[in-house]
């Protein structure tokens, strides 16, 4: 892989050291469902590190473990060489949702961490003013968060973190709730301050699902795989700041990371137990609507793609982030309507046919794909066919799914299966009674 250097150990003494970290949901009477499995992480002074992965890859969980908000199920977490118990001194966090207190002014929000430490009022105020000015919020001291735009709110979040002079700044998808332009301004402002040495911090650990953001800002990227979360690869970003998104080497690195993230797992993960009912029954389905899938197939079928597209280019053209595009691609792959390989998405024959068909034929193609490749939907339909009254409770399927995945995933998977089955007219669903049936279905077997 061009442009990617192998991991080189850093000489500095580590701020954070995590060994063999595991995190699991404990569910009664079944094996542990793993969120994180055997994660190792070392964080040294002077670096910005990204945890990059899809939603559900456990990267946010890892960030919370580093912050001390969460204790791992197993493994060792050391902060400045000592075991970590609870939120530590010298760590500050920036939240995706900003987590500002609506009843406190900008100044009061920024002073929160200082107040907790019992720092006297005069010092609090002067430090808060410094941080507010540094981050470009001067003049907004007495405003309430609801008077500010999203970008300004996240600046408050940053000032609140910087004012406690943390050694380590943790950021949980800090720019993902902002629009593109605002996010870009904040990123460059932050990197400029970092390069000029104006930030009172030693190191930054950020969670993101935006590949370009990681390449733009970070010195090192840990790419996570999902289900369970593992560090799939670790990359050093060799470019000096300021970085140019259009630089061919930059583009190449983004492409390579796309390829890494779409690489098919070689073998089924050992930690996901093989489904008891039937193979593949408990394959998680991402909540992607049929409209999106149809739209993507139509786009791919038309020019300039003609059935094949480079994922980063496609993401750019559709203004989607990797985290949004990849689940769509994977859903198509699961249905055998398209294939993902080497950072490209390629339509299959069935996919091309789908794109050219009328609504009714599309439904037939989709139904055939579902019955062949989505065991959950096939199982629901088969159960309905077998029952004399053609009815079945959704609770049973949810319970079975929950034996193999977390309740949230089970919920998403079942919802998606219901939506797909309804679209393909394989079954009806009564939300009120949580019941599948063959009412209003034209072709009961």
């Amino acid at each position, binding site marked *: 892989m061009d442009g990617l250097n192998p991991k080189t150990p850093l000489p500095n003494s580590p701020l954070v050291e995590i060994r063999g970290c595991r995190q699991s*949901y*404990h569910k009664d009477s079944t094996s542990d469902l793993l969120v994180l499995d055997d994660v190792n992480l070392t964080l040294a002074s002077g670096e910005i590190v990204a945890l990059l992965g899809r939603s559900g890859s456990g990267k946010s969980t890892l960030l*919370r473990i580093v*912050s*001390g*908000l*969460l*204790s791992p*199920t197993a493994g060792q977490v050391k902060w400045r060489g000592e075991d*970590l*118990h*609870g*939120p530590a*001194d010298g*760590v*500050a*966090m920036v*939240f*995706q*949702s*900003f*987590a*500002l*207190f*609506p*009843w*406190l002014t900008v100044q009061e929000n920024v002073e*929160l*961490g200082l*107040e*907790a*430490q*019992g720092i006297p009022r005069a010092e609090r105020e002067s430090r808060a003013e410094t941080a507010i000015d540094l981050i470009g919020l001067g003049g907004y001291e007495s405003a*309430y*968060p*609801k*008077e500010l735009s999203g970008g300004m*709110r996240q600046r408050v979040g940053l000032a*609140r973190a910087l004012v*406690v002079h943390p050694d380590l700044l943790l950021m949980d998808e800090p720019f993902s709730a902002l629009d593109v332009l605002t996010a870009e301004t904040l990123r460059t402002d932050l990197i400029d301050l970092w390069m000029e040495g104006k930030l009172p911090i030693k190191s930054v650990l950020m969670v993101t699902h935006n590949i370009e953001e990681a390449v733009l800002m970070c010195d090192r990227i840990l790419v996570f795989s999902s289900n369970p979360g593992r560090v799939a690869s670790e990359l050093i970003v060799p470019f000096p700041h300021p970085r140019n998104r259009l630089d061919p080497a930059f583009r190449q690195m983004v492409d390579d990371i796309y390829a890494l993230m779409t690489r098919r797992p070689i073998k089924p993960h050992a930690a996901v137990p093989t489904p008891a009912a039937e193979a593949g029954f408990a394959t998680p389905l991402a909540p992607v609507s049929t409209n999106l899938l149809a739209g993507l197939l139509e786009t791919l079928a038309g020019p300039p793609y003609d059935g094949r597209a480079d994922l980063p280019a496609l993401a750019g053209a559709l203004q989607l982030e990797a985290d949004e595009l990849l689940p769509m691609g994977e859903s198509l792959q699961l249905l055998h309507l398209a294939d993902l390989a080497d950072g490209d998405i390629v339509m299959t024959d069935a996919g091309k046919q789908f794109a050219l068909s009328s609504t009714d034929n599309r439904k037939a193609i989709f139904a055939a794909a579902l019955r062949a490749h989505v065991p959950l939907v096939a199982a629901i339909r088969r159960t309905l066919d077998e029952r004399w009254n053609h009815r079945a409770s959704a609770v049973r399927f949810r319970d079975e799914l929950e034996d193999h995945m977390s309740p949230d995933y089970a919920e998403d998977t079942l919802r998606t299966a219901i939506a797909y089955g309804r679209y393909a007219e394989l079954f009806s669903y009564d939300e*009120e009674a949580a019941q599948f049936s063959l009412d209003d279905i034209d072709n009961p077997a």
Partner: protein
Amino acid sequence: MPTVVPASLTAGRRVPNAWDMLAIACVFAGILALVQVTPETFKPIDAPNATVVTLDPANLPEYALRTTMRMFAALAASLVFTFTFAPLAAKSRRAGLVLVPILDILQSVPILGFLTFTTAFFMSLFPGRVAGLELAAIFAVFTSQAWNMAFSMYQSLTTLPNDLVEATRAYRLSGWQRFWKLEVPFAMPGLVWNMMLSMSGGWFFVVASEAITIGDQSWKLPGIGSYVAVALDQRNMGAIWWAILAMFVVILAYDQLLFRPLVAWSAKFRVELIATIAPEDPWVLKLLRRTRVLSLAGDAISNMFGSIGRLRMELPTARRAARAPRSSRGGDIVFIAVSALVAALAVWSIVSYVILHDVGMPDLLETLGLGLITMLRVIILIALASLLWVPIGVWIGLRPAWAQRVQVVVQFAAAFPANLFFPVFVILIVRFHGNSDIWLTPLMILGTQWYILFNIIAGASAFPSDLQEAALNFRVGGFLWWRRVILPGIFPYYVTGAITASGGSWNAAIVAEVASWGDTKLQAHGLGAYIAKATDEGNFAHVVLGVAVMSLFVLAFNRIVWRPLYAFATRRLTL
């Protein structure tokens, strides 16, 4: 959805479980304990001038002030209760298991039935002194205010936004600091709103609890309520109008000086990051914010609270990372064993009381029958009030210019103690020889119908304008418009209002099913009259039985009718 939902709707469960049973047993065992420590004979109160009420209107300002002071004393007690009860129930899983159902039951107990015991109890604490009477009155108001305030805070504490909780932990606020920085502010809008509802309800009870007659003893605490009671005895209609006027002034003052500013102020604690167009500040709040001296005083107060909140007050074990919730089996077993023991004791004390006081099956059947009569009244009244107020409320609610002004008036009407108007009705019934069973009935809903109107107006004002336009565009009109468009749209609001009204009506039955004008006594058939009569005769066993049956009726009514309706409304009729 209505922003504030009665707690009895949201407790979630419908089918009573073991904890409900425990709660029912404990509440009634507690009540019995209160009855038993009460001496069966009453010592006459000696201080002659302390409890004399004259009908001279010149005394009314003083009486009004005393009534108001009782209200605020009770409000302070309710706040203390709320701030201890709610955190305890929210933070300890085990305490929550017991405390939440207990609160749910307490909400359904008609407190007016207990004036007798509480008065006797507090008077036995301060024999021969007015303090006992004062405390009894304050306690009566407290029991009408505390439960929904505590429930509101409990709900807030269990629904704290996760990101803010994480922020307080990441920035290492101690539990005490988090309480003042996050939990109290977050609970504030709901708490203030419930305080307002409580105060509105409270005027009714303070008026009812100032003049108490048990057996052939009667006491009158100087206040507006006892002033009205004396006026009734002396058939002095002029005095009653004076009392109504005084009450009007008091409620106007409390509304303008206290609650409008408080509600406007509490809006800043709403967790919504969208700037909404805030309605103009009430004049008192403007005064506070813009007057230099007053705002300095305000700053001083907020600084004081700020420094309380800044104390760390940390327990040595408090700083821990969150682990997957792990319950200790042993602790649970001990807890359940203790709970079972308490439940057994409670049941035993109830059974022994029943045996001792010879309350038999006939009594039970009689009260159940009377309960059905009162229930029929409540249902008919709610239906009639709905027929009247739903169209009017919708009409007003869809006209924004009207809605705001009418809301203010309706809120005022809800706060006004309806029992002050009872004499007017009684005179009419006496004059026209009306049937008590029919004509006393409307009194039950006199004060509570406003909750229906209030919520209907709120619902209709919140009805999405695009849906209205769609209905107009497709020319949906007449009956179809009511059935398909507006009624489903306001239904969740309607249920919220109707449950409040029905709960209040049950309570009001105790004072509304019997009425008197001088020597003339009017009495309707019903559980309320049964309780009132038993109180008059000093027959405690019957009072307890009546109140218990009424509580069960209210509980069953809530669980069987309102909660399913509310669940349906939230599931199906909201976007």
